């Protein structure tokens, strides 16, 4: 920062207060949720304003009760989390495999009709999910694919392919193609080039895209609600918590569940913040 630009005291105060207020707004509610989840439900009811739990009050009972299976008197969140994990991982693997090939083709190969494909992808990205949900629900229940995880994986893959294609394509375009050209001239096959050269170089971009897709699948609620609401065993974590909300479940249980659902996302994010941000930026700025 050059000495020519010294900020006045007023600007500094304004800047600092914006940062502090944003910090409180961004983290306050989450902190509130965490603190409440550690207190017994009766004490939350009696003293809503008493935020910090007393040392003797703190308990993780809400967490154990939330996660334990219903057969053991819990709320079955553990199996909901497992369903979400299976869905998320399956979606990421299929979606990434499919879109690496497609993104490489649209980024590197000059084939006729590729700009039409790009336009379709952008258009599809903007179609309202709820409008597609109507026919998808009808067609997949006609095909007997509602009420199981496979149907949901198919939907999630298709919903995430446009996004990951878009992110990966922009990432590939930004990479230099000279090494690939050299390898092609030396007689390496196209799949060989993608496997041996593009993948290693593009790994950070692919990892960022994969995490983004995992978060989409992990958070998804509408299709899970439509497809799985009758099959309690298959509820995903968001669906499970939302359904429990309607059953008068104690709020401490719901909050504990919410925190548990958040933890994998936070872990992913902390590990790869920079990767994710650069990936997101790559997805937006061409």
């Amino acid at each position: 920062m050059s000495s020519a630009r010294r900020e006045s005291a007023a600007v500094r105060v304004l800047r600092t207060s914006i940062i502090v207020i944003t910090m409180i707004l961004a983290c306050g509610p989450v902190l509130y949720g965490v603190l409440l989840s550690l207190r017994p439900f009766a004490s939350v009811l009696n003293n809503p304003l008493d935020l910090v739990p007393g040392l003797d009050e703190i308990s993780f009972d809400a967490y154990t009760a939330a996660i334990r299976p219903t057969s053991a008197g819990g709320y079955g969140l553990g199996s909901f989390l497992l369903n979400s994990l299976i869905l998320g991982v399956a979606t990421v693997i299929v979606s990434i495999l499919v879109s690496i090939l497609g993104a490489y083709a649209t980024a590197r190969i000059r084939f006729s009709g590729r700009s039409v494909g790009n336009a379709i992808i952008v258009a599809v990205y903007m179609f309202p999910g709820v409008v597609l949900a109507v026919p998808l629900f009808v067609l997949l229940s006609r095909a007997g694919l509602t009420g199981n995880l496979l149907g949901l994986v198919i939907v999630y893959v298709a919903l995430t392919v446009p996004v990951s294609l878009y992110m990966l394509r922009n990432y590939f375009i930004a990479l230099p193609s000279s090494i690939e050209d050299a390898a092609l001239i030396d007689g390496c096959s196209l799949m060989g080039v993608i496997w041996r050269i593009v993948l290693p170089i593009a790994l950070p971009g692919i990892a960022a895209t994969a995490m983004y897709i995992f978060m989409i699948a992990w958070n998804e609620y509408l299709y899970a609600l439509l497809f799985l609401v009758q099959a309690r065993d298959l509820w995903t974590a968001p669906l499970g918590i939302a359904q429990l909300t309607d059953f008068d479940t104690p709020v401490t249980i719901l909050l504990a569940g919410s925190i548990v659902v958040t933890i994998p996302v936070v872990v992913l994010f902390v590990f790869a913040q920079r990767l994710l941000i650069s990936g997101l930026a790559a997805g937006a700025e061409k």
Partner: protein
Amino acid sequence: MANAPTVRTARGSRLSRGQRANLHGYLLSAPSYLAIAVVILVPFFAVVVFAFADFRLIDIPRLSLDTIDWTLDNVRGALSSTAFWSALSTTLLYAAFTTVGVIAGGVIVALAMRKPFRGQSVVRALFLVPYVLPVIAAATIWRTMLNPQYGIVNAFGTQVLGWSSPIAFLTTKSAQIGGLTIPVALIVVILFEIWKSAPFTFLFVTARLQNVPAELEDAAAIDGANAGQRLAHIVLPQLRTVVMVLVLLRFIWSFQNFNDIYLLTQGAGGTEVMAVKVFKELTVRADVGSAAAYGLWMTAILLVFGVLWALANRRKEAM
């Protein structure tokens, strides 16, 4: 490229380079397009068909193209129902206010965070918490905060601010405050969306700000421009394109938002936006045809904004 001379590859293929590029291009992108076609384009055509069909959920097992009862009732019925128009105006209000709020919030915070300071990267990561938080967790926490019995907002209001009674924020359609009618629940879902999505704008604006050359501002500062002038004449004009794209994208996303509203209010308290209406036509009224018709109108309206977005984007690329 198309009229490139035929080349013999090491494997002796006789395809021209252009043909070979076409073949490879199609083969590699086929899975992507297949996925999109099967689960997005086909259903989209199905939505058009259903919108013109007398078709309810119980008819699904007998569904086939030649048993469809064609009708214009769904499409007409949507337009003549007051619920459609109230859902549309709610959606437009919701989309407009969240767009403005999300972008204003993101830009202001990004500008405040521009100057490096100790711990900046930690603070920046913490700002992203509402965006990264799964929507179910965010909605559960907000519902708890606003709960009339044990929520902190109502507890604070009644015990400290002296409210006569707690407010059911998520189910109250409107309240009179100082002679003004305030749509309470709608404001709550708008604030929720701003809180959740402003970090996204913040990310993009921050990325753009890092590319604003420092020399320009330094030169202006030496020439005597104060902080406000530098902001208005140098920094903000550089943000114009990214903000314009974000405005349209955000509007389109907000316009079709279902999760955030449904998880907070389930459409109660005057928050029944188009997406919630489509969902309820399908699940509560079990009327596939009507849901499809609502969805079709919704898509048509969105398409107008999509075209605007494409035009804005094209102009950006041309520059």
